[in-house]
């Protein structure tokens, strides 16, 4: 087995890392350009701890649905090659998801509290 150069994946994500580093560099350059800008001071009381959020149940349902949606991606790529059986599998999956939404809705989960 001979290998010539880094693997394509390493090369691709090496490029992604390079863009990441250069974007950080760009941000640093912009920040450096404003070092001498005259400063303003904003005085406000600390308000951490004074807030509550009204969508806790939404957020929990969201976690479940976000993961379920991720499972759809590999399925979607191979769907056309597998055909009807993949469709029926996903039909069951989507019926379950739909039942999940209907249940959450019925139990009052889709409300701002």
């Amino acid at each position: 087995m001979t290998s010539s150069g880094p693997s394509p994946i390493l090369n691709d994500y090496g490029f992604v890392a390079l863009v990441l580093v250069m974007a950080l560099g760009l941000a640093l350059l912009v920040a450096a350009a404003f070092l001498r800008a005259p400063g303003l001071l904003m005085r406000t009381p600390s308000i951490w701890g004074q807030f509550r959020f009204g969508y806790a149940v939404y957020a929990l349902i969201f976690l479940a649905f976000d993961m379920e949606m991720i499972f759809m991606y590999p399925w979607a790529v191979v769907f056309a090659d597998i055909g009807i059986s993949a469709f029926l599998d996903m039909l069951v999956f989507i019926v379950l998801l739909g039942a999940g939404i209907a249940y959450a809705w019925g139990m009052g989960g889709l409300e701002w509290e």
Partner: protein
Amino acid sequence: MGMIATAALVLVALVLGAALTLLVERLSTPHHVEPGPAQAADVRHSLVIANSDRWLLPAGPVVALTGVALALVVLPFGPGLIGRDLGIGVFYVIVVIDFVVLGLALAGWGANTAHAVEACYRIIAQLVAYVVPLGLAYVGVIMMARSLSTVAIVEAQSGLWFVVLQPIGFVLYLVTGLMQSYRAPFLEPFAASIGGGVLDVSAGWSALLWRIALAGVLFLVAAIGALLYLGGATGPLLPGWAWMIIKTYALMALMLWLGRLVRPFSTAQMLALSWKLLIPLGLLNVLLVGGLILLGVGP
């Protein structure tokens, strides 16, 4: 072309795309309409906030900018005109573009002012509203293209654009794209009533970086929409990159125009819209597209 030159071109594309987006938005926003993320920036001063977190607040715009820059890597502007054609293309876009949300949340919480922390909560609620229906709009396209690669998705539309085959998916994308880019009618996190939210606590370098990142998000959303539904960088007569730019800004203009026809949504209304209408519609769209493919429609 060397790796560094290509990476630099990705960043140049981001800055130019964001600048043109900001120009389009500033010129097209009438005075009686809230500008949202495109509001004027104070770039003459720097800002010190008394009780803010030392690291979270400045980290916000940097994280958001890198997210937008990373997403641009897989955007094809024509044959060979792409940072890298990653195998997981559009899935990668969904993941890295949400660094904008992380950045906004970091800065909003870190600023520790009433307006900014309120904006932080609204930003996260908006994410909970749009991610699932947006992802379902992507799934329909992936099923027909049989690939996550952005280049393969454009190739799959050489016969017929997916907007024709998946009109429900396209409408879903328009609505959720407006949510993802915080444009009217979904600009509650940047509403004038909370002083522009996170932008209220930005000046100087952070104001400038926020404008690049937030205009960059709209640019990306329109470009990805052109890629998923309008055939991307392909078309007659003109070169591919010209078509990509025309389609991107035409789609952006359509989205901005449609968005301003509707009364602004509160965050609670947006969550209800998403979970009671858009997500069921998205699941239906996946089934319809599956049925079409089984009937032999599509590439």
